[in-house]
């Protein structure tokens, strides 16, 4: 990777009067006029905003608003669907990841992802973590990296004595933390989380939310959630999507206390959802 280019400043921020936040933290991922089509159906319309470094950015909005689609555009997971066309750009450290010469595999090795439903491989706990290391050609310090990742995912103490056991024996919450550890083991820079708690009970959800707070020290986190309280609890910035458009983006505190957009206000006060 080339050295990070200077963070572009977002025109969107300027318009909305959030210049202060945008400048205070460098941008990792910059989305510019990004539109996306599934076949002939347009799912995203001219999305423009910046994901700030070492912060948690929450993406909220009603079902079908495009929030997951946008998240999956950040690591080019939408490519796998085969029928997707995009316009505009998403820049990671100054490089447009949709440029022709960019390999989606390289993008995904730097931008990790955690899914809605825990999806550990039907292998041992250790093998789940060894897999990303192996495909990335990392052969040195494997055990140490596995331990570090499990510690960061707050799972080490629960599994250290049974690394050889199947990951499917873990509870749902443990499986999701295992998936987080698996995404962290190769030290990506960004962690994308697509409704990571929606399949979990309240206790496991609380643990993962605490974990997200710690992760932000080392990683940039983008989390899609249908749970507005969760967005308010874990994030510093919030983006509100509605029918494929970004309606509002700003510091979470402001979005939840004095939204400038009427739709945002209606959504967060529960008038629709």
């Amino acid at each position, binding site marked *: 990777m080339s050295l990070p280019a200077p963070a572009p400043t977002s025109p969107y921020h300027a318009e909305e009067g959030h210049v202060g936040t945008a400048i205070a933290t460098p941008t990792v991922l910059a989305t510019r006029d990004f539109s996306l089509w599934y076949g002939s159906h347009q799912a995203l319309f001219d999305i423009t905003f910046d994901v700030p470094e070492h912060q948690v950015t929450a993406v909220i909005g009603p079902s079908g608003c495009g929030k997951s689609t946008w998240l999956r555009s950040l690591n080019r997971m939408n490519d*796998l669907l085969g029928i997707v066309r995009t316009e505009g750009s998403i820049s990671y450290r100054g490089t447009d990841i949709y440029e022709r010469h960019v390999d989606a595999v390289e993008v995904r*090795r730097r931008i990790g992802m955690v899914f809605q439903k825990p999806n550990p491989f039907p292998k041992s706990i250790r093998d789940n973590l060894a897999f990303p290391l*192996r495909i990335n050609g990392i052969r040195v310090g494997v055990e140490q990296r596995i331990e570090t990742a499990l510690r960061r995912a707050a799972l080490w103490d629960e599994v250290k004595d049974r690394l050889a056991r199947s990951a499917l024996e873990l509870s749902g919450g443990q499986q999701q933390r295992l998936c987080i550890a698996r995404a962290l083991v190769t030290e990506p820079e960004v962690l994308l989380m697509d409704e990571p708690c929606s399949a979990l009970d309240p206790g496991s959800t609380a643990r993962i939310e605490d974990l997200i707070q710690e992760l932000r020290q080392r990683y940039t986190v983008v989390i899609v959630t249908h749970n507005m309280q969760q967005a308010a609890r874990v994030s510093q910035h919030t983006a509100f999507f509605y029918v494929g458009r970004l309606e509002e983006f700003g510091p979470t505190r402001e979005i939840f206390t004095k939204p400038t957009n009427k739709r945002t206000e209606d959504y967060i006060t529960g008038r629709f959802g």
Partner: protein
Amino acid sequence: MQATLTVLPRTPSLAAPRHRRLFEAAVRYTLLGCGLIAVLVAGLTAWTFFAGSLPFFEKVSLGEFLGSIRWAPITVPEGYGTLALIADTAVITGISLLVAVPLGVLAAVFLSEYCSPRLRSFLKPVLEILGGIPTVVYGFFALRTVTPWLQEMFPSIGFWNGLSAGIVMGFMILPLVASLSEDVLYAVPRSLREAAYALGATRGEVILRVVLPAAMSGIGAAFILALSRAIGETMIVALAAGRTPAWPPDPTQPMMTLTTTIVNIATGDHEATAFIWAALFAIGALLFVVTLSLNIASHFIVKRFRELYE
């Protein structure tokens, strides 16, 4: 408002009317009967073979039946050893699986992981039609097309030979392997593929390290079903492999499988009371036991596979 309530009797009968009960019972017992017929026929078949082979085992020991290589039921002294037949069956089956399993699994990987939906909707029916070709056609294809090709390459190969029959039988069971494996690969949850892709795996890595391992037990079940199909296959070997047991088994020469032996006896000119009919039943029982145990094994493997993601 005027109350116009119909007064219901205090103790209403909630029992179903008689005609409804009779109809439901008729449906139920008719369906039960149909199911029982299938079980009954299977049981009857098994019983026919075991009962029919009892006189055989009164005269020939199980040790000679399974351990001797001399199959000579109509010469004097008679020999009833099936070891050579078993070996020939195993060799031809092995050849067919060497063809069918790698090609079938690779075809399945292509269909489920690489193929565009449009091409897949064309290729899958073609594959299934291939599975519906009568085996006698395959047998003729082996005898008149594949054997001459083989003879051009290796002149020492006989007019009847196990190799040609095995290769063509492999093509016959290839659709079975491909279709079953494709179902299994397709059943590997998309979430597992996504997990691997999101970690930066390439398509090849996803297939080799995630999808195939997760599908392995299902592919194993497909393998066993193919195996049992190959062992029981009759027409191709009867036409193309010949009717002379080979010992030691040499696929370039005529071979005789267990199934061909049954055909041979059944189409031969024997008196109805001849002892050779008992031998036929004994071989039938042997085939029955082998394929039944393979199918049961496959059933348990599939069951284990189903539980994997739940």
